[in-house]
């Protein structure tokens, strides 16, 4: 083997090794992307639907008979039997649930919660609620923010009717 052949061989090996490294790196990035996506989506689902014994925001609204306040950034609902107020609010980057003074972490990495309240007016048409007692539909837009600028935000938009609907 001459020096030239060796040099050519090393260059070819270097190029091919670079291609192989890119492919393997792509595999790692794909895995990381899938893991982050699953993680973010499960957080948003947990915020809305709950997990196990922890009731999510939507479930709480469906079981509630009234809204106690028309807050666009949190949800406070009253359940029928005990009249206890259950509220969901963002503090820092986490969504917390509070019931009867007991606060529990509902989901973390939740960057925002946008809530709207609706009810039917006397003409039977839908409108934005102006009083908490009249609200019968709650819609919520939950955003899980990416942890760095290269990742996307994940959002879920859902609605729940309260039990006070005629």
């Amino acid at each position, binding site marked *: 083997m001459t020096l030239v052949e060796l040099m050519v061989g090393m260059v070819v090996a270097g190029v091919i*090794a670079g*291609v192989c490294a890119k492919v393997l790196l792509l595999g790692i990035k794909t895995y990381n992307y899938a893991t982050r996506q699953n993680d973010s989506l499960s957080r948003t689902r947990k915020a809305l639907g709950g997990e196990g014994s922890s009731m999510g925001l939507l479930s709480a609204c469906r079981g509630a008979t009234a809204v106690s306040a028309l807050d666009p950034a949190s949800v406070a609902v009253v359940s029928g039997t005990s009249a206890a107020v259950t509220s969901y609010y963002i503090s820092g980057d986490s969504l917390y649930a509070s019931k009867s003074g007991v606060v529990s972490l509902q989901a973390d990495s939740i960057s925002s919660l946008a809530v709207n309240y609706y009810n039917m007016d006397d003409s*039977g048409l*839908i409108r934005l609620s102006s009083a908490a007692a009249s609200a019968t539909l709650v*819609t919520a837009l939950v955003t899980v923010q990416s942890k760095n600028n290269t990742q996307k935000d994940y959002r879920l*938009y859902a*609605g729940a009717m309260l039990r006070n609907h005629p």
Partner: protein
Amino acid sequence: MNRGFILVEATISYVLLAVALLALLPVFILAIKTGKGSEQLQVATYLSQELLEEVRMRKWDQNTPTPPSRILNPSSTLGPDGAESASDKKSFNDIDDFNGWTERAVTDPLNNPVPAFAAYARTVSVSYVDSNMVVLSTPTTSDYKQVTVCTQTAKHPPLCLATLFTNH
């Protein structure tokens, strides 16, 4: 005499290894596409559920009184009635007004766009069904209205949720 690899053999083996690894590229691309599809499916489920709740807020039929009670003469036509606008769902006052409703981009209950979901389209269909869930053709009516809400994006098939509303 010691045996070894000649340069050509070594180069060929590198090329084969590179080709084998390049064959993995479609697998990674498929993994990302599948993940994207799964994400859109979850979002579509919640969007369909939300529109179902909007439909549920309305009274069962144009002829349903307030407070609601069972009626003997449900409307035989399904769709917007009278002065209701087929392009503005906030003018709908009963469930079957939503029949044929189409949103090319998601809107809130007051028909304002929700920018985060502009890529999702939603449709609603309403039909009378009998007690065996068989769809009845117009003008036959029954005590059951089946509402189906479908949400889809351009690249994925629709995700449909259906429910029954009864005359009460």
